[in-house]
């Protein structure tokens, strides 16, 4: 089970949280202006990386708030958690091999 550092409450067990998918996928201001490919990408296509992944979590059995996290999908280790609305933190770059490793 993961130990997840909620930016509001501190580290708590995974059971208190709900995973909410990839982060930083913005809904278009006016979806009617998107073509089918762009709308499909928004709805369905995900980056699914092997390596650092930006994702949303909700501390559903705690403060109830959403936040973002960067987690390495090969080790499940959290590199950072940060509040919704703040930009993705500038993490030290991995060696660039994560996609293929």
């Amino acid at each position, binding site marked *: *089970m*993961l130990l997840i550092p909620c930016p509001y409450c501190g580290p708590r067990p*995974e*059971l208190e949280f*709900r*995973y909410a998918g990839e982060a930083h996928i913005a809904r278009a201001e006016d979806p009617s202006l998107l073509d*089918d*490919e762009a709308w*499909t*990408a928004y*709805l*369905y*296509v*995900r*980056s*699914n*990386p*092997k390596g650092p*992944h930006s*994702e949303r979590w909700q501390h559903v059995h705690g403060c109830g708030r959403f936040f973002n996290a960067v*987690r390495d*999908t*090969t*080790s*499940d280790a959290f590199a950072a958690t940060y509040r919704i609305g703040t930009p993705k933190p500038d993490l030290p770059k991995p060696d660039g091999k994560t*996609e*293929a490793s």
Partner: protein
Amino acid sequence: MTRYSIATLVRNAFLDHENWPRVWRSAEPKAAYDVVIVGAGGHGLATAYYLAKEHGITNVAVLEKGWLGGGNTGRNTTIIRSNYLFDESAALYDHAVKLWERLSQELNYNVMYSPRGVMMLAHTIHDVQVFKRHVHANRLAGVDNEWLTPQQAKAFCPPLNIGAGMRYPVLGAALQRRGGTARHDAVAWGYARGADARGVDIIENCEVIGIRRDAAGAVAGLETTRGPVRARKVGVVAAGHTSVLMHMAGVRLPLESYPLQALVSEPVKPVFPCVVMSNTIHAYISQSDRGELVIGAGTDAYISYSQRGGLHIAQHTLDAICELFPQFRRLRMLRNWGGIVDVTPDRSPILARTPVPGLYVNCGWGTGGFKATPGSGQLFAWTIVKDEPHPINAPFTIERFRDGVLIDEAAAAAVAH
């Protein structure tokens, strides 16, 4: 290829089984192939087998970064069934069940297909309504499925607890009698042997690290840890790592990869005659021929490539098993493990061409790909050779998400996710 028969078995028994030939060669990669399949699991090996057998294309390589059958083929709970709700799915999975029925003879290799019946339990009024709908839809589609009362379910599977004191009482069950299990490793080995005998090179410990494309954008070959390999047609059959591979060709897919767990108990005498699934309280269970109870658990909530899952996921499933089968409470679990499954938004697979000419993808089987292995391989081979899908896999495109023609088995809840 040595044909296996009672005569070869007797002869080798007298020779202390020391002279059985190797079942497949350990091939070195050549510079070029007509078709390269990425991933030597059941689906990839079956694809190579049918390319050689049904289409006469034998200049084929199957590249595998690890060892043959070492991914999800060797990690699943071996359940075979075809009682899916939608016509497209029922046709796809029942095509595979029909191949399973003759697969041991086809491959001259005992895959131990055992149609012992797959029983899906209903615990709520909603379950009852959904499963009855499945029964009717399946029967209209020509797929066997029948409704059982709790008493009939217990008669079919005597260990089942149908007592009224359960937190989630058994209100009935849907039974597919043609469903069952097979020996997962034997499926990979049998297809590998058949493909190898027809000239296919199976190359293990060979990881793909790049996909080369020509000036027109079409596939030109692969970069691997054992050198470059040229090919005009490449089929990616890499399950949980499909996104990673397709990224090398600049293709983004509607896929997410999750760890899915399974576990086995200590071996006991034959106690469990069939396969039982419960979507609502999330448990899958059957008994292997070695006597171990084979138990399927759920996926973790988050994407991961770690090939292990959270302990609470397995515990959740064991809670359900212990309530359904109280006599198993004192069994000890011997091993548990995880595999990385690639899940699509509608929980149906993608078996199709990609936007890159010469690049084909067979993925998105999610938590239930083993059952489709023979059919998936045969249809994918067809798709690669003809450069267009077979009518059975024609609905399973990437473009269905753009065009709004999902095959939404997720909402149909034919299977727990």
